[in-house]
């Protein structure tokens, strides 16, 4: 069935009792400018067809015109809720291509900010997920906790959302005085708050009814469609890039990886929620053992990596963020291809939505934790 923007299906496309509902780009629950065309039969969904591109900002083309260092702030704005991991993926790709060795302290700091970012991103997910399901209050609580993290980031690099903290060869600057103390305070207060939210929302009977058994994805489907992160782990596949293909300094830390069983919305949600506890553990280990040293390697002003290509991937809060970087030996990248996890997960949407009701589509989209910035680039 061809969907034209005019939104009228050709005769014969739909069964008699079906109709199309447009969950338009403007919608409180699509987490950005996502358009989903729902083919419904009363309240039952027959199909859900995503339509994207409303936030396409030509990142890849623009990156070809800027130098390698200049591209770093661009990567911030892709998955804007989790900017640190984006920058990390990109600078790791450049470092691999150019053969730059990153100092130890910088690697540890990278892990620190990546994990703080993970908690912040999962808090946003938690708040908006609750909001989608009708509970307005957890959102305010989640944002309140996230403010602590944003304050830490602001002290660290001056920005709350788009940091430009990573540099090719390290990070931009060292921790300001008082940072470690404030972070430890944050670590002390978070676990009890998380438990409170668990009791308030995750263990709520209505929440369980709305999410258990919804949007099932089997492990085979998840792998076949390129799912990653909590979306993949919710289906029972125990794969986490931080543990299985360690980068930065992740191989030095002990942490658990929550894995679900049935691949429904509930399992994905619980995986994501539990990851926050694990991130707190990692941050504590980082603070306990942070080595001294430089935070930045010496990198030439005009960086010209040798011709070649590389694919690096990191575990962002959403899943596998991959950067395929091609260099032609010049100061500007020849090709930067961004592999966004939400893009791959969107392909799972019709698979997950089949047979459920209209009210479930909101829960399903929420469980994928989609950010249109990285889908559309």
């Amino acid at each position, binding site marked *: 069935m061809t969907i034209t923007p005019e939104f009228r299906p050709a005769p014969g496309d739909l069964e008699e009792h079906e*109709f199309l509902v447009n969950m338009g780009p403007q919608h*409180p629950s699509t987490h950005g400018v996502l358009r989903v065309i729902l083919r419904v039969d009363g309240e039952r969904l027959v199909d859900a067809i995503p339509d994207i591109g409303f936030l396409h900002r030509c990142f890849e083309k623009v990156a070809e015109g800027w130098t390698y260092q200049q591209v770093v702030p661009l990567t911030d704005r892709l998955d804007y809720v989790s900017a640190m991991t984006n920058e990390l993926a990109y600078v790791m790709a450049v470092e691999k291509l150019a053969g730059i060795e990153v100092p130890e302290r910088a690697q540890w700091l990278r892990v620190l900010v990546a994990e703080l970012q993970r908690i912040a991103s999962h808090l946003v997910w938690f708040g908006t997920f609750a*909001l*989608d399901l*009708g509970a307005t*209050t957890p*959102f305010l609580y989640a944002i309140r906790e996230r403010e602590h993290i944003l304050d830490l980031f602001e002290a660290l690099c001056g920005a709350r959302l788009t940091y430009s903290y990573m540099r090719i060869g390290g990070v931009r600057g060292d921790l300001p005085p008082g940072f470690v103390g404030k972070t430890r305070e944050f670590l002390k207060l978070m676990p009890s708050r998380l438990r409170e939210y668990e009791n308030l929302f995750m263990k709520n009977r209505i929440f369980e009814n*709305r999410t258990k058994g919804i949007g099932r994805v089997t492990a085979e489907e998840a792998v076949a469609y390129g799912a990653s992160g909590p979306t993949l782990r919710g289906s029972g596949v125990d794969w986490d890039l931080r543990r299985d293909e360690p980068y930065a300094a992740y191989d030095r830390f002990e942490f658990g990886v929550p894995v679900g069983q049935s691949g429904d919305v509930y399992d994905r949600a619980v995986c994501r929620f539990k990851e926050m506890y694990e991130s707190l553990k990692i941050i504590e280990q980082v603070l306990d053992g942070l080595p001294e040293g430089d935070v930045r390697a010496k990198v030439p002003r005009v960086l010209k990596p040798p011709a070649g290509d590389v694919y690096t991937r990191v575990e962002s809060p959403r899943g596998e963020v991959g950067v395929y970087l091609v260099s032609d030996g010049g100061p500007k990248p020849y090709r930067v291809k961004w592999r966004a996890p939400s893009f791959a997960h969107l392909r799972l949407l019709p698979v997950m939505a089949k047979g459920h*009701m209209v*009210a479930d589509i909101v829960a399903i989209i929420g469980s994928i934790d989609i950010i249109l910035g990285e889908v559309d680039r």
Partner: protein
Amino acid sequence: MPADLGAFLQGVFDQVHLWASQSPFWSALFTLGWGIVKVVLVLGFIIVNVLVLVWLERKFSGRVQSRLGPMRVGRPHGWAQTIADMIKLLGKEDIVPRAADKALFVIAPVVIFTATMLVYVVVPMGPRAIVSDLNIGVLYLAAAASFTVISVLMAGWGSSSKWSLLGALRGAAMLVSYEVPMVLAVMGVVLLSGTLSTNAIVKSQSGLWYILVQPIGFLVFLAALFAELNRVPFDLAEAESELVSGFNIEYSGLRFAFFFLAEYANLLALSAIAVTLYFGGWQGPFLPPFVWFMLKTYGFIILVMWIRWTLPRVRVDQLLEFGWKVLLPAALVNLAVTGVYVLLT
């Protein structure tokens, strides 16, 4: 003071009634006039309280969510916020979608407000302060409460928008399904008090509030109340985060204001009914009956708001399942047990 004022007003009323009964024409005019006075009083009561309720909801939800709520419009705690919002709504453009069924679209807000006002007819705010002490009060209530379904369907269908329609259908299914357990739960109270008149029910609670002897009935009634009020956890017809305002998506300006006000007027009305049936209405020592009534009603409203801001939303099929498979049997059991008790005593 209040006793004197009541006696004075009663004296005035009796005098005017005496003058009017001299001729059929004047008598009819008097009845009409008195009816209009009652309507104006009720309307005034509704409007003032709705303004307060909207403000209260925003403040209360703010506090629950660890924020402040309105603070600026009206220096202490933004008490004039609702008034400002109403003025803003009145100033908006009146948009009627081109494909809308104009008659239905226009009438729906009026119907919903009327339906809500109908409930106030049997709300007793004092021993004699009731618009009309029908001796079939509870039956009348059950009928009047069903009216909102019609207006929801009118709004949903008349808006000629798929999202409105979905919301309206969900809302209609929910409202209709929860009428039954609600009325059955109230039947328990009727059995205990032996009368359908609301004022008589209040008077019969002078020794014991019915909440204490009808706990299950009350819980059933409470659940059904949320469905009738269209509030989370049962706010499917509106479902902000899914249907973006459900059956009243296409409404703007004054028409939307009507829906909005009707929602809070309904909240007030049904809370008053709940207090009347289960918490002893205007009964209470020391304070005047009206004050007791208001205190209890607002206390109940706070409870309703509290639940709203804590729980997530239930899905429509789960809602219907809950209504038919859990609430209805519970209400029936409650009725049976109450009946046996009444029979034996």
